């Protein structure tokens, strides 16, 4: 299945920008929806207003955090099929394994090198395709 629509949930505007730039470098044709609020994102998804093929999820967010969001989406029958990749500043092993247990497709630590993020995204999309 080809990835056509990606949802990026992150409250950090800098990271939103870096992510979209990196994604544009990988594939400019992919439609990207960016949401700063996980609770809103869940609502939109539930009402089918957005129907992404892949979700990139930050963990540390005000309101509903990434972990909560992941837990909820994986319990919804109509949404649980959507792959979720966690993209966080954390590199804590325990967090990584916990997220994977909760159904995260993959876990990336936000890199300090821009090109690393590009490579990461390429890999993620290739894996999904």
């Amino acid at each position, binding site marked *: 299945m080809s990835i056509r629509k990606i949802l990026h949930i992150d409250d950090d505007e800098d990271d939103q920008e*870096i992510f979209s730039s990196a994604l544009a470098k990988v594939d400019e044709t992919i439609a990207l929806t960016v949401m700063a609020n996980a609770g809103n994102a869940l609502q939109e998804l539930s009402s089918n207003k957005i129907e992404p093929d892949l979700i990139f999820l930050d963990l540390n967010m005000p309101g509903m955090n990434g972990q909560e969001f992941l837990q909820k989406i994986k319990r919804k029958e109509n949404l649980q099929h959507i792959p979720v990749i966690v993209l966080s*500043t954390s590199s804590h092993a325990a967090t990584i394994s916990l997220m994977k247990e909760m159904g995260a497709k993959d876990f990336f630590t936000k890199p*300090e090198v*821009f090109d690393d993020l590009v490579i990461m995204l390429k890999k993620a999309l290739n894996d999904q395709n």
Partner: protein
Amino acid sequence: MELNRDINVFGSAVMQHDGEMAELIRQYDWSKSPLGTPDTWPISLKTTLGLILHSAFPHFLFWGEELICFYNDAFLPSLGTNGKHPSIGKKGKEVWPEIWDFIGPLIHQVMKSGKPVQFNDQLVPFYRNGKIEDIYWTFCYSPAYGDDGNISGCFVTCTETTTKVQTIKKLTESEKRFQSLIREATVGIVVLTGEEMKVEIVNDAYGRLIGKTAEELLGRELFDVIPEVAYEFKPMLNNVRLTGEPVYLYHHPYTIKPGDKTIEGYLNVVYQPYREEDGSITGVMALCHDVTVQVASVKKAADTEQLLRSVVESAPFPIGVYTGKEMRILLANRSIMDVWGKGYDVIGKLYSDILPELSNQQIFQQLDGVYTQGIPFHARNQRVDLIVDEKLKIYYFNYSFTPLFDTDGNVFGVMNTAADVTDLNLAKQQVEQSEKNFRNMILQAPVAMCILLGPDHVIEVANQLIIELWGKPAEDIMHKPVFDALPDAREQGLEALLEKVYNEGESIHADEMPVSLLRFGKLETVYLNFVYDPYRDAEGNILGILAIAHDVTPQVMARHQIEDVVADRTKELAAANSSLEKSNEELAQFAYIASHDLQEPVRKVSVFTQMLESNLPALDERSQHYVDRIKLASSRMLALIRDVLSYSQLSGKADEPVNVDLNLVIRDIENDFELLMQQKHAKLEYHGLPTLSAIPLHMSQLFGNLISNALKFTRKQVEPIIIISSELADRNLLASRELSGESYHHITVNDNGIGFSEEDAEKIFNIFQRLNGKRDFEGTGIGLAMCRKIAQNHKGDIFATSKEGEGATFHILLPAQ
């Protein structure tokens, strides 16, 4: 009737006899007799009567059909008095009615047959002397012929043999009694006659002696029956028979073997000559009395006496027996002679002669008292002074004088038993002396001491110090039960302690026991170190308690003050610690948050710089330099923040330790550093590293940092070689690092880099400590601090040795499993 005529008619034989019976015949009125008057009597009758009357032998005559009776004077005594006499002229049947059934037929038989009949000693009882008497006769009935030659009467010649018969009868009975006496005698009796020693008389008692019955012996020759003793007894018996000298044997042993049996025993024997009536000796009478039992009992008595003597002799305590009022020594055993210091020559001598030194010691009086009164005398622990080895010495005895009674109940002597208790007495005196010393010691002791006696713990001895401790006047408390004397000491747990010591004999000691006492009217708490010991007698019996007390009140009070201060300080310290811990935690939290939050902007600076650079057209040299400086600074800042983050995380909650194979840890690190190692032509050697209980990430960080440092601080022109090896840690090494566990791994990471000077060996583990210029060597200065923290968190340590320019060795000590 006329006499003359009568004379004529009776004939001269009758007439001329002047006996009583002749007179009676003459006087009798025959006119009414069937015989008719004498003038009509046949000549033969008259002749016969003449014969009878003149005979001195008793005769009786029955004549004629009617058997008219005639008898002579000699017959008279047999008729007795108050009997049949006179019966002259009466009919036989009338005179002898009581025996007519017997003699009637006899008379008729004789008269008919003409043959005389004779009886010897025939019992013919008849009436005489006023009664029927048993009378024995020897008599002859013979026919008496008349003038015509026919038998006209029966002529009886008789003699009364009653006396003879009765004598014989008595003799026979006496003989029977004699035989029966012999038969039933318990003494064996045998009469042997003749040279052949034939058994004439024998009883069962004798038979039993030789295992036969009297019947078996009677009539036999004795030594045919018991030939086995002939050699011994036959000559003796012969001698008695020939000489008439009796033989007496006492307690004479004999052995008889009837059949397969053996009879053994002892006899008292009398052999007496057996004389006939004429005094001639025809045999020997033997009287044998079995005295086997007596001999045995005598023997036993002798044995018993011997036994008694031997018991006395071998008794381990002194025994002496003295007889008579004069106290002659009859028996004295070795033991008593040892006491006296004398020998066996004392036997038979007088007690007072042997032991004159006792004369003024009441002993002789005691002995005499026992002898005269028959009452035993006992003495205990009595002092007796004896001359032994010519020296007067003091002894102590328990002794008894016991009266000895003979069979009549009279005292014949005194038995003296004794036990030498001198040693015991001396020991007792010593015990008493040491007891006295002990009490003196207590009184003078420089610590408070007392003795409490008995189950009530009566204060027996108490020195001045303990009286002061108790705080009561001595006269109020001495010789009273301790809890009566010191009611204020009750119910503070002391009762149970004293009971335990007294009842179980255990020593008890207590340190700094607080005791409340009313001392001179003031209630005070004193602190005592004390020892309660059981107080025993010489036999080990518990008499009471020895209490030793030491008043440690001042020391305890002083220490309490110190303890209070220490407690306050401890409290303060704990509070400080707690706040320090809190601030440490807060600091760690702060470090984490700060570094985490700091990390983000720096990361973004770094990323946006890269994005900026790639967005810009070609930069001039100066601009490129600035961009590079920004990139370098931001990546360096990121590294710093990340290390601070890691370090701060070490203080927080750690993961659970698991088994970690260090070989695998190093292999992973080697992979991580692969590129760098290729660039630097570095070699990493490791082998035989242990598996230990550790947190895997920390081990990666620890060895990662060390390998990273080794690759960092290399010498120019020298290809780096890193060698990691392990051995068990030396004890001295552990001690020098103040590690107390049993077994440690000593892992070394050795390089050939630039090293460092010995004085910096410890410094390098401080956080942010850098020895080298940043320009030459990259790094944050946190790595080794982290390594030490990890090692210490694993209850181990790390230190380094090096010489500047010669490489470094890092020594890691980690507990072995």
